[in-house]
């Protein structure tokens, strides 16, 4: 598969496609926390870095095989997510945002000072295990599982927390438990994404996981439409490609990126696909088809 792709697809495009896949995994994780459950996390990159470093340290210093690294990265990030989540998820809205920012910054500074993580130099020589099949295979599995989840009893409970926490609780939803579970799942995906990222770049340092990275991931979730899986995917694709497409404007790239966010929010405040539902799409489609058939006959 890989050699076939490399034969026919330009390496540059292939890399972007892989990067999109990694970002989708990361953004879907954040989508569970922020988009679906409504708990604003602005420190997703912190959990991503926990995954990336866990995986990189295991691989470079202990020679652990990649699949084990990958799983360990997810579990480690989820473990930290739950440990930090239990106390902080009592906080509301912007307080939670601030604490997650703070946590991610602390994680970054810790890696900056940690001997085993290579301090400011970071870690290099991470085996290049991330490829198209692994990333997109995982994307498909995660999207399928995620879709199943959101349509089910626990998924609805998560949405209900976003919509109205008091009413959710009065309907029998243990909101504290579900928030922690959502955080655990979201940070698990952050860890997986981080590991893939580390084995994709083969070199990581704390600078890869700063505040701006968390912000980028949040943009992907909000831009596409909060809580919607297709929305998150679309948002991720657009925002991953945007800097590449905008390369022709060179150093003005980020200027456009910033302006793009403002403009998109003004014109689509609920995100690109935020208020589009499968149900409505299907209804419009069948209505449109009916009128079309009538005209035909």
């Amino acid at each position: 598969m890989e050699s076939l792709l490399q034969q026919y697809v330009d390496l540059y495009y292939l890399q972007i496609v892989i990067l999109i896949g990694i970002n989708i995994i990361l953004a879907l994780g954040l989508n569970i926390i922020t988009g679906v459950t409504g708990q604003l996390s602005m420190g997703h990159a912190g959990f991503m870095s926990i995954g990336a470093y866990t995986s990189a340290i295991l691989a470079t210093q202990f020679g652990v095989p990649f699949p084990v690294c990958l799983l360990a990265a997810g579990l480690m990030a989820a473990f930290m997510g739950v440990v930090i989540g239990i106390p902080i998820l009592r906080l509301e809205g912007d307080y939670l945002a601030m604490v997650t920012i703070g946590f991610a910054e602390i994680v970054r500074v810790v890696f900056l000072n940690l001997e085993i993580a290579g301090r400011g130099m970071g870690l290099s020589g991470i085996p290049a295990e991330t490829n198209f099949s692994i990333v997109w295979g995982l994307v498909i599995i995660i999207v399928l599982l995620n879709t199943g989840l959101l349509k089910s009893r626990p998924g609805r409970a998560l949405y209900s927390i976003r919509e109205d926490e008091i009413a959710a609780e009065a309907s029998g939803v243990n909101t504290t438990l579900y928030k922690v579970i959502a955080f655990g799942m979201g940070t698990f995906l952050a860890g997986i994404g981080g590991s893939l990222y580390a084995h994709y770049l083969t070199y990581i340092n704390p600078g890869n996981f700063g505040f701006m990275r968390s912000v980028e991931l949040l943009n992907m979730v909000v831009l596409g439409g909060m809580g919607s899986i297709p929305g998150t995917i679309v948002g991720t694709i657009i925002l991953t490609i945007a800097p590449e497409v905008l390369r022709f404007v060179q150093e003005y790239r980020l200027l456009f990126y910033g302006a793009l966010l403002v403009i998109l929010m003004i014109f689509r405040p609920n995100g690109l696909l935020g208020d589009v539902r499968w149900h409505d799409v299907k209804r419009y489609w069948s209505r449109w088809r009916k009128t079309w058939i009538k005209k035909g006959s």
Partner: protein
Amino acid sequence: MFLQQLINGLTLGSTYALIALGYTMVYGIVQLINFAHGEIYMFGAFFGLLLVLTFDVDIFLAIAGAMVFCMLMGVLVERIAYRPLRGSSRLSALISAIGVSIFLSTFMVLLRGPNSTSYPSSVMAIKTYHIGSIELSSLQIMILVTAAVLMIGLELMVKRTRMGKAMRACSQDLDAARLMGINVDRTISFTFALGSALAAAGGVMVGVYYNAVQPYMGTMAGLKAFAAAVLGGIGSIPGAMLGGILLGVLENLGIAYLASSYKDAIAFGILILVLLIRPQGLLGKATTKKV
């Protein structure tokens, strides 16, 4: 040693407080974390520098000029990027603020390059006083006094003037304030202007104090000032002052007695600990859930 660190901390903390006030006032009225606030502070520092370089003004004029410039800028940012989003979800407004923040810092990079520049020494003659073992520079005194004057002025303005009353009314209930005949749009613009002016003053002073001005200086300062606002209880003006000063002092003590390489983690560590014990911040009011 301890006293010295305390003074350094107070100096740093009073600049955090100046920036934090902008976050807290805006949040109090429109419940928006104005992520572009750090960039306004950065622009203030640069505009002050521009004044000094072209007109050779002294530090007070530089501060005043930067304050006026950033007032306009704050109002403009609100008008363009936040007002159209006032009715939509808070997250959309937040993303818009992030967009503005990215835009402004990149804009400055394009204008001045990513490296740091310093204020010329002519901006202020700095004397150092020795009191026992403590060193105190005239610059530190200037910063502390200016910050104090600005904060007292703000407090008086909010408590005593009509506009201040309108601001307080709006922070209680925007719709009710509108029904009472308060011009909500103007009050919000005014709040942005006020917050931006304070941040600009902080920017110029920090620029002179650390002898460095660069396009990304707003990001970390903004995050820490936001942390300070949350620490004090977001929406509370005295809270922002207390939070800023406390963070500055504790950060300096932490650097002195713990490890300087953990500098940036200290402020956030303190913040998290405080919030776990007092989720509403130090001076924030615990609100009973309205059902």
